[in-house]
């Protein structure tokens, strides 16, 4: 019973995006909430200091940011776990 419920829940979660995508949604809450209410009260977002909205530049920058962030996270995780293993080895000797 529980498994069936979770399977249905998972299916609904997987199917819903397709339905919503058809209506061309998935805007960020910055657009749908923050900028919408700001505009209603006469405030509008301005172009950022470094404007990255040129062709595939955002794609490239976000990819680089993800790769660098992921590399740094992995590197420090390894440093943390390696030092623990080294401590254990030292204690065993």
């Amino acid at each position, binding site marked *: 019973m529980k498994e069936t419920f979770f399977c249905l829940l998972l299916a609904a*979660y997987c199917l*819903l*995006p397709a339905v*919503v995508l058809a*209506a061309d*949604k*998935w*805007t*960020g*809450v*910055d657009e*749908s*909430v*923050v*900028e*919408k*209410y*700001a505009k209603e*009260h*006469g*405030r*509008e*977002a*301005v*172009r*950022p*200091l*470094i*404007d*990255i*909205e040129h062709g*595939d530049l*955002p*794609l490239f*920058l*976000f*990819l*680089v*940011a*993800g*790769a660098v*962030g*992921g*590399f*740094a*996270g*992995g*590197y*420090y*995780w390894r*440093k*943390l*776990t390696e*030092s*623990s293993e080294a*401590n254990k080895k030292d204690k065993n000797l």
Partner: protein
Amino acid sequence: MRTVRSALIFLICSLIALMFSSSDALAMHISEGILPFNWAALWFAVAAPFVAFGLYSLTKRSAMELSFKPLVGLLAAAVFIISCMPIPVPTAGTCSHPCGTGMSAILLGPSISVLVAAVALLIQALFLAHGGLSTWGANIVSMGVIGSFVGYFTFRVLRSARINMSVSGFMAGLFADWATYAATAAILASGIKGDAPFMPIFWKIVISFIPTQLPLGILEGAITAGMIALLQKRRPDLLVKMQVIRQEEAGI
């Protein structure tokens, strides 16, 4: 084995990066130019002492504990990635992101977590058009200060009531996320209201955030609980040193 693990980490990172890459920069922090100058300056003034104290705490604690810097590095990377990753919420049809500051506050302390958030927000504002430089102070206050302190105190209160570690972590992540967006609503409402009353605008923004942030808060809770459980398994000694758990709970 290590090569496989590295390849796996790289693959996950690439997938994460691909997930949040898009033709439009999907920023969920307060965008550049939204707040009037006087409000932006006020939030800078509020954030500054927290960032300065975070810097002081980092210098002091990293001199005392050698494992502290790698832990800060790990959590800085995690907060950076988590807080600029737009996650689609099918029930709302919009995208938003968790913050990661609840997790970093539990493990590093709230003051250093503010510093970590400030650095992540600055890089995002400068190079990813995510947030803004003029709204940097406001975003530090909502995500860094409010998120970190609410997450930290939720965890501490629940732990002192002897609530299970994972449940405490989950609730800390959940409340940190919800508090961050409540603070964003308050900051935004106060900045844009002009002569209009504050409360109606504030509630309107809060209600608009709910369909997206309600499920994302739950996701953030799960991420926080998962990270703490993972560290408890791999580095219980570190959690003892960070005063997250007691010596007898660590089993070392």
